[in-house]
Every structure is written in structure tokens, then in C-alpha cells.
């Protein structure tokens, strides 16, 4: 019997306590950010959109190997001796012509693993986060500017997951 | 002009529909619905007569009791029907024939 009334009292009391808290919050400042009007300033390390400065790319393919989800596709061909030497902005000579540098952003897992091994730091993740597109196909980013001179080889493509040999 | 007879005819119709339901339906709950129709028809009678009675509200008082009894009756009947369902997994009256066998 005593317990019965204690339970009733406790119910009412804890409900009142809770109501006190919500009442207090009714007048605290909201933490919402009004997104398109106010904008988040992302820290510089933010990993959002991949960008490749193709001019600096030496076609080493380290990023392709590092990518755990195989979303980077690269085709290169050797520059012939007679072509004028090309240098990346940090002075690295570019021996390969990158005829295809595609990143399928719809597959990217934003792990950043591709950018670390890049010797010329041309592949970076930018803090740019508004890159929605109307068509999913547009998530295939094609960076390569050079057209292939040699007959095209089949693209380096590893389906995910790769079946065991 | 609506007169007493109209109400009585309405109640007669309800009563016979109730009797029809009671006689023809196999489902116990459905039979209960027929019984409710019968009780309602009697209540219409009582209240109609009360409207045209010379003194007092006897008919209405009686009707109140009928409503009360109807509620109690339905509660008990449904309890029995529910028990039957638990035992036989059906409420069809033609399955309730163990007693005849």
C-alpha cells in the first residue's frame, strides 16, 4: 500500500522534474544552423570532393593501388622520346601521358588513402561539399585532358568485390 | 405526419430482422448482433409508448434498464464465446454439437 502511493508520488514528481527541464530548454538558444543562409566553415582537413590537378599527375598509379574500393581508373601511355619533356609544378618530370584519369565519385568511400602516396600531391580531397548532381552518371569525374595516341587498351578495371582466383 | 404507428412499424421491422438474423446466422457473434436488434426494437417500442403515455416516463426508465442489461448480457455472452473459441477454435454454432453426439 505504501509502495502504491510512493509510486504515484514518484511518477508525478519525476514528470514534473522532466517538465521543468523541457521548460528551461524552451528558452535556451537553439543549436540549429540555418543551412543555406548560414554555412559551416569546414576545417581544412575535411575530406569531401576528390580533385586531381591533372597537370601535375605523373601517372604513377599509386593512388589506383591504394584505393580500397577501386574507384580510380587510370590509363597511361609512355611519352615518346621526341616529345618535349613535361614537368609537374614541383619539378618532377612527367614521363607518362595520362590519357584516362577517371574517378567514380559514386563509388568513393572518402577514406583519403589515395592522396597520401601521391608523389606530386596532385590528388587531393577538397573541403567542397556541395557537389550534388542531377544524374548519377555525372559522378564519373574525368580529369584526363590528353587523348590517347596509341590504340586504346582496355581500361584497368577491377570489379568489386574481386572473385577469388 | 409521423405517428406512433410509424415508430411501431420501425421497431417491428427491426425485431423481425433480429429474429431473422438469430435464426439464420451460424456465427455466435452474429447471433448476438441479432439479439441486439431485438432489444433495440423493444426499446423503440418502450420509448415510443412513453412519448404518448399519459403519465410519467416509465417506458424510458424501463429502456434504461434494458440498455444496462443488454450491456451485461453481451459481456457475458462474449466471454462464453471467447471460451468456446479457445476450446474449439471456432465460433460456428454448427460445431457446438458435442452435446448431441
Amino acid at each position, binding site marked *: 500500500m505504501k509502495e502504491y502511493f510512493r509510486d504515484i508520488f514518484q511518477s508525478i514528481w519525476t514528470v514534473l522534474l522532466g517538465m521543468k527541464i523541457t521548460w528551461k530548454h524552451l528558452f535556451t538558444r537553439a543549436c540549429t544552423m540555418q543551412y543555406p543562409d548560414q554555412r559551416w566553415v569546414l576545417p581544412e582537413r575535411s575530406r569531401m570532393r576528390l580533385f586531381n590537378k591533372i597537370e601535375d599527375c605523373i601517372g604513377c598509379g599509386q593512388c589506383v593501388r591504394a584505393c580500397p574500393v577501386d574507384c580510380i581508373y587510370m590509363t597511361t601511355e609512355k611519352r615518346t622520346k621526341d616529345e618535349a619533356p613535361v614537368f609537374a609544378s614541383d619539378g618532377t618530370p612527367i614521363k607518362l601521358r595520362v590519357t584516362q584519369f577517371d574517378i567514380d565519385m559514386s563509388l568513393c568511400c572518402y577514406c583519403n588513402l589515395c592522396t597520401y602516396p601521391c608523389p606530386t600531391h596532385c590528388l587531393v580531397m577538397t573541403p567542397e561539399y556541395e557537389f550534388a548532381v542531377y544524374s548519377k552518371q555525372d559522378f564519373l569525374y574525368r580529369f584526363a585532358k590528353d587523348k590517347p595516341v596509341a590504340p586504346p587498351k582496355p581500361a584497368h578495371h577491377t570489379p568489386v568485390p574481386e572473385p577469388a582466383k | 405526419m409521423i405517428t406512433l*404507428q410509424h415508430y411501431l412499424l420501425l421497431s417491428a421491422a427491426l425485431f423481425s430482422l433480429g429474429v431473422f438474423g438469430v435464426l439464420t*446466422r451460424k456465427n455466435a*457473434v*452474429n447471433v448476438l448482433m441479432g439479439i441486439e436488434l431485438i432489444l*433495440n426494437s423493444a*426499446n423503440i417500442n418502450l*420509448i415510443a409508448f412513453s412519448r404518448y403515455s399519459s403519465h410519467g*416516463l416509465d417506458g*424510458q426508465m424501463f429502456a434504461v434498464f434494458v440498455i444496462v442489461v443488454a450491456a451485461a448480457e453481451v459481456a457475458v455472452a462474449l466471454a462464453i*464465446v471467447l471460451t468456446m473459441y479457445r476450446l474449439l477454435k471456432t465460433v460456428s454454432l454448427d460445431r457446438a454439437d458435442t452435446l448431441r453426439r
Partner: protein
Amino acid sequence: MSVFDIVFCIVALVTIGSAAIVVLSRSLIYSAFALLFTFFGVAIVYVMLGADFLAATQVLVYVGGILILLLFGVMLTHRLYNLNLKTETFQLIPGLLIALAVFTSLALAATQTHWKRVEKPVAATTETIGKLFMEEYLLPFEIASILLLVALIGAAMLVRRRSDA
């Protein structure tokens, strides 16, 4: 024909029509929901007969109590999720004949008899009913409460799962 008459005709039609659905419909659940309209129609008939308290009681008890009980009865006594709760009928023709005979005789009685009747104005009934309950009808009132108690205990006893002997 006055407005009153028209209303009565409509109400009577709805009442009888839905009552017919109750007893004729092959779907149990339709029968149950048709009862709603029957009960409501009857309540409106009460109002037209000047029994406003009775009308409210009718709605309260029949719609709020009995109909819900019946609905629960329907749902608890069938495989819950079987949408076509079809029920069978038997002895359709004899039943029809008997019902017709009953209706004819009741209708005859209703129309042929000289009922005792006086024309009197409609008056509010609630207070009178209240007084009657406390005076002339005190005993039935008390007996009705015992009846309800017995029904309550009995019904609870019957549906209780464990018989805590």
C-alpha cells in the same frame, strides 16, 4: 410532409437498411460496422421521440460499449488477419418465412390496436429520470448494479486464462 417527417423517413431507412446488412451481410465485420448505423439511427429516433437522455445513453452504451465489445469479439474469435471473415447462413428460407410472419403479425398488431395515447409536449427528461431513479425506481436501480457486478465477475472469471485454484 414536414421536415420532421422527412428526417424520420431517412433515419428509418438508414436504420432498417443497416440492420438488414447486419443480418444479411456475408462478412462478419460488415455486420458489426453496420450495427453502428443501426444504433445511431435508433438513437436519433429516440431524440425524435423526445428522449434525449436515452439517446445519449444509447450512443454511450451501445456504440461505446456493446459495439466495441462485439468488434473485439469478432476479432478475438477469428484468425485475426483473415480479412474475409465470411460467415455462413443456414435455414435461409424457413428463417425468411418466420421473419416475414413475425413482421406481418407485429405490423398488424401495431396498426390494428388502439394504443393508449395522449398528445403531450416534449419536455426535457434528464432531471425527471434522475429523480425517478432515486425514488420510484430505486430498487431496480440497485438490482441493476448487482446485475452488472455479477456480469463483470462472471465474464472476468470466464475469460481468465489461469484458474488460480
